[in-house]
């Protein structure tokens, strides 16, 4: 059974004419690392909220279809069960802070404390989250005095401390410096296998190191679902999100008629050198 399953989800905000999600179906397995790329206004944050179980909420309900985890639709989950199963980190980290913690340490402890875990367990979880998100040196700081990137790391740490089975991140690395981002990815790799990570991104490059399965969300539907190479080479992806820098350079050489036919455009620096050398030999 799929871990999270979206079935024919059709959703519009009250009073909106057009649906945001237009009969969307997709499934995620346990332990997958997925990047969902999406142009602006494609339904990115809305889908993220559905996957995280934050919708349905009050009047915000689907006209058709539903999202389930472990085969059980979201309305059948209690808030506490859901919070321990799936965590969502939004785009604006400062809006995610509880506001009732005086230190970074307490902010991370807030969630596990609310699960009524024993103190030793809470402390162990906080220590682990501090390490994963490169926050140990900031543990005693007031969350509201952190920089934007540090707050982003803090909201991810607070989510990880819940030890969810699914972590959903809306543009997780956009505000991180490269060292923090690489640390974060390396630390995610070091976590027990089985954590499902779904990231939503507008930028192409950050997800390449993080996810193995890519999708393009466009106009409320998943239009392509596959390897990074397939998705980044999809015409609609290029049209709405552009190309990576090395792919763009190779593309311009191809436009000039000098890129060998049948040689794929490289996506990353790691493969680009060889492709360019091959093109030079041709």
């Amino acid at each position: 059974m799929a871990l999270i399953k979206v079935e024919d989800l059709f959703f519009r905000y009250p009073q909106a004419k057009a649906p945001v999600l237009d009969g969307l179906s997709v499934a995620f397995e346990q332990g997958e690392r997925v990047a969902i790329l999406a142009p602006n206004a494609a339904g990115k944050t809305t889908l993220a909220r559905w996957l995280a179980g934050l919708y349905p909420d009050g009047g915000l309900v689907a006209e058709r279809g539903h999202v389930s985890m472990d085969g059980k639709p979201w309305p059948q989950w209690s808030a506490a069960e859901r919070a321990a199963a799936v965590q969502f980190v939004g785009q604006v980290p400062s809006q995610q802070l509880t506001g009732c913690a005086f230190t970074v340490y307490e902010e991370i402890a807030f969630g596990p404390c609310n699960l009524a875990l024993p103190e030793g367990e809470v402390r162990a979880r906080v220590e682990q989250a501090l390490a994963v998100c490169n926050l140990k040196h900031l543990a005693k700081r007031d969350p509201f005095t952190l920089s934007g990137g540090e707050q982003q790391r803090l909201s991810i740490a607070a989510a990880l401390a819940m030890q969810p089975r699914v972590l959903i991140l809306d543009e997780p690395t956009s505000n991180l410096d490269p060292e923090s981002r690489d640390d974060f990815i390396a630390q995610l790799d070091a976590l027990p296998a089985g954590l499902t990570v779904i990231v939503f991104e507008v930028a192409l490059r950050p997800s390449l190191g993080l996810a193995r399965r890519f999708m393009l969300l466009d106009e409320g539907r998943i239009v392509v679902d596959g390897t990074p190479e397939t998705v980044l080479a999809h015409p609609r992806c290029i049209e709405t999100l552009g190309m990576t820098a090395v792919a763009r350079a190779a593309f311009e050489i191809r436009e000039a008629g000098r890129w060998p036919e049948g040689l794929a455009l490289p996506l990353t620096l790691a493969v680009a050198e060889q492709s360019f050398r091959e093109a030079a030999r041709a």
Partner: protein
Amino acid sequence: MLDVASVDFAYPGGNPVLSDIAFSVRRGEVLAIVGRNGAGKSTLLRLLNGLRQPASGTVTVDGLNTADTPVHVLAHHIGTVFQAPEQQIFNAKVHDEIAFGPRQQGLTGAALEARIAEVLGRIGLADAAQLHPLDLDAAARRLVALGSVLAMKPPVLLLDEPQRGLDANAMARLEAIVAEEAEAGTCVILVCHDMDFVARRASRVLALAQGRIAADLPTLDFFTSDELTRKAGVEVPDPVELARFLGLPPVLTPSALAAKWLADHRSA
């Protein structure tokens, strides 16, 4: 246009955030401020726009010392788009949000409407004028915040992570606006983590490391120095690296890389 002279700063009760900061920015320059999380980038922006005052040293914007100038006066000389645009938007319609600044400058009637129409065109939101800004997607909200600042035509623009969350279309708009502003003599200052964007659009890079200036160089000179990019903790853009691997002359952008490669392999 903008002058920072031996500035030090610490938040109350805290360690020094910025030490011995000195630089000036001329009209038409696009300066990118880069560095690790917590290096002091956003704090420096708050010193430039007068939201914070230096502990020592002076900041002069358009001839005004920020220490003697109220923030609401300074705002006509230096416009800021903050990291989280939803925190600076406060009108119920995109039109009114754009109108707010120029109205404070005394613009009214047809002149005001013309200014609003011009800005809406530049940010590509003419059709959204009557919508609530917070009903728009994140990128459009960022463009509204940018538009509300552009509408005041300040001689200095401060943009904190303006490229964040923009797709290809919105990014093209932002880049066109940055280029037009620089062309028109505006001094544009960006805080930015996206080094591809910096490589494409900035003429000069100011790198902060632990609250001090680690580098202040033309963009190409900065990115081709391993020592300085490492010190600042920033990523070297792929075209710069690839040109080096391939033994091509230094470049910043994909287009420049393609051009150098084609020049180098003219006769196959």
